[in-house]
Each structure stands twice: as C-alpha cells, then as structure tokens.
C-alpha cells in the first residue's frame, strides 16, 4: 500500500493555479525528489500535504486514510514530518532541548500528570533523554548539544531539524531543499543522513534544486512546473529526457 497518495490535488491563489490537479503515490521506504523551476508550486504542495493549507480540490490519503480534514498537528501525530527551507529550529533553546521537546510521547506536557503522576513522567523523561543522546550522536552534533540552536551553523541547524524529525517518530519526511545553502561537504553529510534514515524505515519526499545530487540518491523523480507534473520516472529516465531542459529553461 502506498504511504502517501495524492489525487487531483488543486490549490489556487487569487486565480493563479499554484497546484493544478496533481496526482501521485509514494511507496514506503523510498526517496522521491520533486524538482522544477521556482514558483512551480512545490512548496505549496508540501503545505497542502502537511496541512498548513486547505485544498481547493482533490484528496490526500496517508496510510490508506483520508487526512484532508486533519490539522497540521494531527497529521504530525500520524507521522508526517516537515523540514522547512528556512529550517525553523527553536533558536533560543539548546540543540539538546530542541531534540527533547520534539519527543513524541510526553505525558509531562499535561500539567496534572506532571504534578500528580511525577514518577511516571520522570521515567519517560529519562527515556527521552536517552533517546536524545542517541539521536545527537547519530546526527554528529554531540559536541554542540548545549549550544543554543541559533549559534549553530546553517548546516548544523539542518542536521538538528532532521534529528527533531527522528525524535518525533516521523515516518513520511517532507524535506524542503535539504541541501540548499550549505557547503559541499555538508551536502554529502546530509544526503548520507537521509539515506540512513530511509534504511531505518523512513520515507522521504524532497524538494531539491540541486538536481544531480537529488538524482543521485532518489528512487523516483517528479518534475513540476506551473503547478503540474510535467515529467516523472526514475532518475535515469528523467535526466535523459529532453523535456527536462525545456521545463527548466522555459524554452
């Protein structure tokens, strides 16, 4: 069964069709890239899937169930994770705190639990801390765990954001330009991390402008332009297709 299935999804803004009846399916355990020129509607698509925008038409099925009426936090609870272009780490909290707060099961967030069932909460907090230890080593930021998130480099913040998705037990990772704005070494580190995450059972759908890098790790590629999918296939099929150049250069 497909993890994510989108059918005839459409969204317009003031008459401009940002997403124009897009349909596709994502299989679990795969890496899919969405590429295309700026303004093609890729980020809007992500916002629709994650629940930050209401669709005008079409449906979204996640794990077989329609999620169109669910709020973003509810979808996150089901396993939809999001990485933004501008990352959005919690700047005034340390790297470690960023991971701790992302933990999915926190009965301590309910005050009555914290005050009355303290033993229970404490035990889960301990597990939480151990999980955060593992994740911070996994993303190789343990030497920075007590630094404020805003003091991390841009690339380190991206790693932290990916770590947060791990702590949140996200299964479908919507990554918006994961390699943008970082140096070449960091790009490879991030891509390697993404591949490791998929090996752990995650599914990745990513928007990328770095076409060769995206192609190098993807199982499947969609090319979007003006709200529509113009081209799709395996990386080899797509890169050898002359239509690709047309889409990007508008010729």
């Amino acid at each position, binding site marked *: 069964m497909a993890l994510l299935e989108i059918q005839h999804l459409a969204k317009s*803004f003031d008459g401009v069709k940002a997403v124009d009846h897009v349909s596709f399916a994502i299989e679990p355990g795969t890496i899919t890239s969405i590429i295309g020129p700026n303004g093609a509607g890729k980020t809007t698509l992500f*916002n629709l899937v994650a629940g*930050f925008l209401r669709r005008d038409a079409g449906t979204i099925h996640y794990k077989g169930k329609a999620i169109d009426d669910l709020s973003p936090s509810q979808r996150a609870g089901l396993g939809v994770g999001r990485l933004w272009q501008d990352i959005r780490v919690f700047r005034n909290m340390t790297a470690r705190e960023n991971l701790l707060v992302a933990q999915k099961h926190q009965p301590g967030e309910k005050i009555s639990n914290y005050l009355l069932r303290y033993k229970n909460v404490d035990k889960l907090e301990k597990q939480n801390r151990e999980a955060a230890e593992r994740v911070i080593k996994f993303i190789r930021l343990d030497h920075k765990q007590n630094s404020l998130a805003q003091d991390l480099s841009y690339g380190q913040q991206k790693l932290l954001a990916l770590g947060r998705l791990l702590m949140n037990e996200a299964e479908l990772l919507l990554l918006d330009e994961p390699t943008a704005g970082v140096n070449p070494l960091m790009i490879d580190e991030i891509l390697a991390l993404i591949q490791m995450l998929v090996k752990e059972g995650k599914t990745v759908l990513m928007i990328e402008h770095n076409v060769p890098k995206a192609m190098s790790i993807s199982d499947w590629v969609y090319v979007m332009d003006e709200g529509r999918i113009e081209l799709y296939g395996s990386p080899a099929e797509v890169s050898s297709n002359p239509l690709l150049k047309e889409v990007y250069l508008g010729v």
Partner: protein
Amino acid sequence: MAFQILLNGLIAGLLYSLVALGFSLIYSGAKVFHIAHGAIYTAAVYFFLAWIFVAGPASSGWSLFAALLATLISVCLLALLFEISVYRPLSVRRAPPLVTFISSLGLYIIIVNLIALFFGNETKILNPNIEPTITLGEVIITRMQIIQLIVSSLIILLVFFLLKQTALGRNIRALSDNPILVNVLGINGKRIRILVFMLGSLLAASASLLKAFDVGVDPHVGLSAVLTAAVAVIIGGANSHFGAVLGALLLGMTQNLVVWFLSAQWQDAMTFVIFILVLLARRDGLLATKLRLEER
C-alpha cells in the same frame, strides 16, 4: 434625534479618521506600531497652549495663527526626535517588532508624564466661550462642529490627493510596499520615513487641536485616541488607508450611539468589543488583502 446622533457620529468619526490615517501611514510606511502616536496627539495641544502663552492672549488673530504654526512645527520636530533617537536605530538593527513596540510604549509614557508634570492632570479648556449654534430642523450644530467637519474633510481629501497624485505620495506608497527596493531605485528612504512620521503626526495634531477647541484636553486623551485609531486601522484592513478612514467612521458612529444609550464611560470598552467582533468575523479586517501563509 437619530439625525443628531448621526451628525455627532460623523464628526467624531472624521476626527478619528485623521488620527487613524496618520497611524496607518506610519504603520505601513515605517512598519512601526506607533503607540507613541497618542503622545504626539496629546503633545500637540499642549504645545499650542505653551505657544499661545508666549505669543500673547489668544484674542488677536495673528497670535492665534502664529501659535498654530509654531505648534505644527514643534509637532514635526517631536516626530523627528522619535524617529532619529528611537525608531531608526532599531530599524537599522532589524529589531523585532515587539522590541519596537515596547520602545514606543516607553516614549508614550515619558511624553505623557512630562506633560502631566509641567501642566498638571486637570482638563484644560481652550475656548471658554459658549459656541454659537445653528439649528437645522431637529439637529443642532455648533460653530466649532462645522469647523471640525469642514477642516477634517478637507485634510482627508488633501492627504488622499497627495498619496495618489504627487511624487511624494508615490514614494510613500513605494516605501510601504518595498522598503528595500526604494533605496535601490534612488529614492532617499530615510528622508521619506521622516516625512511619513511628520505627515502622520501632523494629522494627529490636527485632530487633537480640532477636538481640544471643542472639549478641552488632559494628558491622558492620547491613549484612547491612538487605540481607537489602531482599532480603526486594523478593522479596516491593515494595508488600506481608505479602510482606516472607513473603520474610524464606523467607530465614531458606534461610540456616539453608546454615549446616547449607555454613558460616555463605556466608549472605549465598546470600541474594543467591536474590535474583537470584527476580527472574529473576518480575521484580516474588512478590506484587507490576504497575506501569504508565511507572512502571518
């Protein structure tokens, strides 16, 4: 009776429109939630009182005119002081809006309390004489109200003319739309900002002076005025000057209805009840254009 309320409401609304228009210009032009607008509103009248004292008793037309002119200049200088000492440094450092708001609050507190310190907290009357009135059917209108009606309407029309038809107006609109691009295009963004503050402050000053000649002034009138203006701007849709005027007229009308049926004490409360109701109904105000998700 209905017409009387309508007339009073219209005039109150027009005076609020001046303040709201000024607030709106500054909010969109300098991107500042300028709560100190209320301080300038108040200070204008006290400047006038001070200048009148200097120029001599207000019976001679000349001294009145000179004092008014000096007042308007003082208001512009105060606005300039605000911009240079507080707002511009924060803008240059890209301070978050909350920080600018708190600084503006600080300015308001300082100015208003300085005024209270020097002039006292009591209400000061500018015009001790009883105003001559005209009766039109069942509606009574005083001479001062006629002046308020005419002057405020003229000023509002003048401002919209300025914004639409003059180069300065175009530059102000450019600054509102895209402050970064403005400098790139060779327009002196800093100078436009100063002019925006001055223009906005002059509008507030004209409103408070027109009102003070009618009912007098005390150091605390500014807060109510600027809050009403802010509410007017927001319910009209924060990026529409015309919406600000519309919002102000609406508030003026309803305030007068409240005064008639309840009491003057509930005015401010009613303004805010309207504020909450309008925003609950239409999240971005009555005439707003939608913002992108990330801009919310």
